[in-house]
């Protein structure tokens, strides 16, 4: 994709059809498309980060759209989420990076965050998430914020379970889990978004829950 830096009168940079525009020694030039790479790709640390982080974040995309929404910025919310987590949320060294679930940020904003959030197993495939609203906060203003809860499991990394119906004044919500989530730790995050979707809180990590440990036959 070529980008027109100076509108349609100026030079452009990038490939268009068989040609490719570039700025070379202060002049805008047009040359043929570059050929295929002949040397093998040297693996760089950023390749590994890109792989791990984008794989992890992509199922969260619809929530990142709200969580990193910004009216003015030209880059996409997902782009901003990648950027923010790039040097904060990874542990290990190249090429074996791992996600530090505690440090992953899925939304950023100045709204009142979730206080004293907890996630516990209610039934075999249900996680109950509860939170508090401090007495100092103005419940009238923030009471109808939607609570967005996301649950991630390594068994099913392409998919997340979520709940986005509860509002802040409910003080708790239940997330229905998939059967396949059983047997591994499920990681839970929460953030709040204003009814118009324009103001969000920082996301909070609520810890991990081992699903399927309660026997359904007892209930």
């Amino acid at each position, binding site marked *: 994709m070529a980008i027109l830096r100076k509108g349609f009168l100026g030079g452009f940079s990038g490939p268009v059809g068989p040609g490719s525009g570039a700025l070379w020694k202060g002049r805008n030039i047009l040359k043929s498309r570059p050929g295929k790479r002949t040397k093998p790709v040297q693996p760089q640390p950023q390749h590994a980060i890109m792989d791990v982080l984008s794989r992890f974040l992509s199922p969260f995309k619809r929530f990142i759209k709200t969580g990193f929404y910004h009216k003015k910025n030209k880059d996409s919310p997902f782009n901003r989420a990648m950027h923010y987590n790039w040097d904060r949320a990874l542990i290990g060294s190249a090429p074996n990076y791992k996600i530090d679930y505690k440090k992953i940020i899925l939304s950023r904003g*100045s709204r009142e*965050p979730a*206080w*004293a959030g907890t996630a516990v197993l209610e039934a075999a495939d249900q996680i109950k998430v509860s939170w*508090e609203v*401090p007495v*100092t*906060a103005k419940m009238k203003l923030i009471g109808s914020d939607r609570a967005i809860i996301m649950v991630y499991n390594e068994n099913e990394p392409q998919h997340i379970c979520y709940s986005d119906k509860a509002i802040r004044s409910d003080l708790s919500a239940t997330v229905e889990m998939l059967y396949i989530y059983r047997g591994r730790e499920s990681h839970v995050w929460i953030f709040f978004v204003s009814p118009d979707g324009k103001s969000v809180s920082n996301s909070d990590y609520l810890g991990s829950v081992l699903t399927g440990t309660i026997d359904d036959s007892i209930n």
Partner: protein
Amino acid sequence: MGILDGAFGDFTGRIGNMVFYKLNGKIVGRTIGKVDSRSESQEEILMRTSLISPFLTPLKEFIRIGFKHTPKPQDWDFYSVATSLNKPGAIMGKYPKLKINYKKVILSKGNVSPAKDVKVSLNDHQLQFSWKPDLEAKNADASDQVMLVAYFPEMLKAVFVTSGARRSAGTDMLQLPTFTERTIIETYISFITDERNDVSDSVYAGRLTWNKSLQ
């Protein structure tokens, strides 16, 4: 292309490597382009900003009141005052080992008499503040209301009250949310007049630690 704006010769737009635009009512110019390298003192300023701005963000609504009536240049707002006081003042150590000095943080500034003999105690998710009313002091009035802050440095969150008990009461309480693990609490206290037209300097009330074994 720069655009000449009116009879006073203000440019806006780009001329060569310079960009001119309006910032807080003034025309400012700067060079445009990528920064390749920074000097050590520039890095230090960046680090100070990265320390103080996450600290002030959860307290934004508090410092909005705390610095509302502080004298300031025409194009400054409360946040400019807060950073200009705390960025040099409330950070200790030498680059690159900088840390926030919670004792020196200023969250409000004004002419009202500040709190004296402040004591804080923690019992079961309640912070109990007490102070000496000292109503004879200059600029102290019985109807002044107390403003309390509890800041949790590990979580980067805060709870605060901007209209608490009267100064004459000598004591007030701040309800904290429940915690699940050990939490450090930094506390501050300040006063606001009944007419909301002046505040006192904020006073550091001490550091407390919430522990599961305490309860």
